[in-house]
């Protein structure tokens, strides 16, 4: 097994990966930009390498600088975390060409699922239900109008190469479609370097339910649990829970089977997540996309299964068996994650700054994965996530109780912070009932 792992990421996920690498008796190498030199993950690693200025293009997304850091430190494996180059097939190839182990799926699987249209077509062929939408990028505006007419309004216009909830817009009718097509294309070109867009049927009342899968070294794909990620603002998740209150045992079986089929369709190895939409009105489930990496919200699955997903990723990458019985995935209790962001709790506008107070909650069932501590500066160069507050309970009611207490005990001063939003969410009748959909945050603020 490799002995040294370079973590090609920053903040809370770098810290969390380093923790498992070290627990397994391996050596962890951290990389950091000039903006992140004082973050806890840098000093907690066994070795750290300065890789450039704050701008991601010149640091965390700079392939040459990352490979050089690996070479310099004798790293034998690279864990890309999430975001940055985690789903960059070319980076995965370069890592492998450098003789290093890539902790993730094959470059081919990354490519197959990275193009949303190709992914939908691929899984549809494998018998996975997909939403009505275009099977290739829309050509000109008139073709888009014809496709939208076939799909039925309202339609979602999405950047084919997009991610992170960006580059999406809903069009209720043809006039809106013409406007949104131009907007989304322009955005996609600027953000992703690819103006391709696709159209999908938009469900007004929908839940976002995803399945954690793991492709083992022996070729089997197992489903480890589902997560409900319907609490979103600006199409980005802010709170997640498992099990999903909307998923019955029968639906769970269907979801898991579909997710495993989708992953098998690309010969998937290592951790991945199959994202689906559950139409709250009809109960219909459709494949949305597959994320070929570890997700931000993976800790809630860890809390109910007792499985360390990063450990399994490293073992699978090393060709080894996992630590649990794939035929008997344990599951116990309920877990909720709240993304503590540097943003105001009312309008969710970002507010970076120097952290002048930082006190994490502690207690039974509480886990905090944080990227920062007092004295660190949250800068505007990266996303606004400061910490993940993860809470487990024997059932949903206990998890909610513990979460309320944990939110009240978490003290952050300096940057803007959305903890008061979570205090509201955790007593909001719609959320407490479990019967909510992706419109919940808009209704709370509407």
């Amino acid at each position, binding site marked *: 097994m490799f002995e040294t792992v370079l973590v090609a990421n920053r903040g809370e996920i770098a810290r969390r990966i380093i923790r498992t690498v070290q627990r397994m008796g391996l050596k962890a190498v951290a990389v950091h930009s000039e903006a992140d030199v004082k973050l806890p993950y840098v000093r907690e690693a066994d070795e750290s390498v300065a890789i450039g200025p704050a701008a991601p293009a010149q640091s965390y997304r700079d392939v040459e600088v990352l490979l050089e850091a690996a070479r310099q430190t004798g790293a034998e494996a690279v864990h890309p975390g999430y975001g940055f180059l985690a789903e960059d097939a070319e980076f995965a190839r370069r890592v492998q060409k450098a003789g290093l182990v890539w902790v993730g799926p094959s470059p081919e699987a990354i490519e197959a699922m990275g193009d949303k249209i190709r992914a939908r077509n691929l899984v549809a062929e494998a018998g996975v239900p997909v939403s009505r939408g275009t099977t290739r990028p829309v050509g000109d505006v008139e073709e888009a109008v014809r496709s939208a007419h076939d799909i039925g309004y309202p339609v979602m216009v999405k950047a084919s190469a997009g991610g*992170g909830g*960006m580059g999406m817009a809903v069009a209720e009718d043809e006039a809106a479609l013409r406007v949104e097509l131009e*907007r989304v294309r*322009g*955005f996609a070109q*600027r*953000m992703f370097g690819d103006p391709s867009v696709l159209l999908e049927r938009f469900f007004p009342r929908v839940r976002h339910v995803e399945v954690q899968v793991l492709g083992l070294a022996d070729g089997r794909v197992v489903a480890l649990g589902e997560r409900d990620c319907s609490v979103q603002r*600006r199409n*980005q998740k802010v709170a997640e829970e498992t099990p999903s209150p909307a998923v019955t045992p029968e639906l769970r079986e269907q979801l898991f089977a579909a997710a495993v089929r989708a992953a098998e369709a690309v010969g998937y190895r290592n951790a991945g997540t199959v994202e689906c939409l559950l139409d709250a009105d009809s109960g219909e489930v459709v494949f949305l996309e597959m994320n070929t990496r570890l997700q931000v919200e993976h800790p809630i699955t860890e809390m109910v299964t007792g499985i360390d997903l990063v450990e399994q990723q490293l073992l699978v990458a090393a060709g080894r068996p996992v630590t649990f019985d794939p035929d008997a995935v344990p599951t116990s209790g309920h877990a909720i994650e709240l993304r503590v962001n*540097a*943003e105001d709790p009312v309008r*969710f*506008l*970002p*507010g*970076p700054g120097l952290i002048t107070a930082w006190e994490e909650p502690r207690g039974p069932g509480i886990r905090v994965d944080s990227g920062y501590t007092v004295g660190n500066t949250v800068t*505007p160069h*990266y*996303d*606004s996530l400061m910490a993940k507050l993860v809470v487990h309970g024997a059932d949903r009611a206990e998890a909610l109780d513990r979460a309320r207490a944990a939110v009240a005990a978490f003290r952050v001063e300096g940057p803007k912070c959305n903890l008061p939003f979570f205090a509201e969410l955790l007593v909001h009748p719609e959320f407490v009932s479990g019967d909510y959909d992706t419109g919940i945050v808009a209704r709370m603020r509407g």
Partner: protein
Amino acid sequence: MEVRAEMVANVWKVVVAQGDSVTDGDTLVILESMKMEIPVLAEGDGTVSTLHVSEGDVVQEGDVIAVIE
């Protein structure tokens, strides 16, 4: 009325042009900050008399984005 940026951000889309009439709630520009798209809205009715930003600009908190008269 001066419409100002509320935080450091990149201007990723300029939606209106100088001379356009706008009504309360119309999107003037869309900013990107910390991996989020943030629309900047007109807070009243009027005409865009000056637009101070172009796509790709970086704005600081307090910078004027547009003047509506």
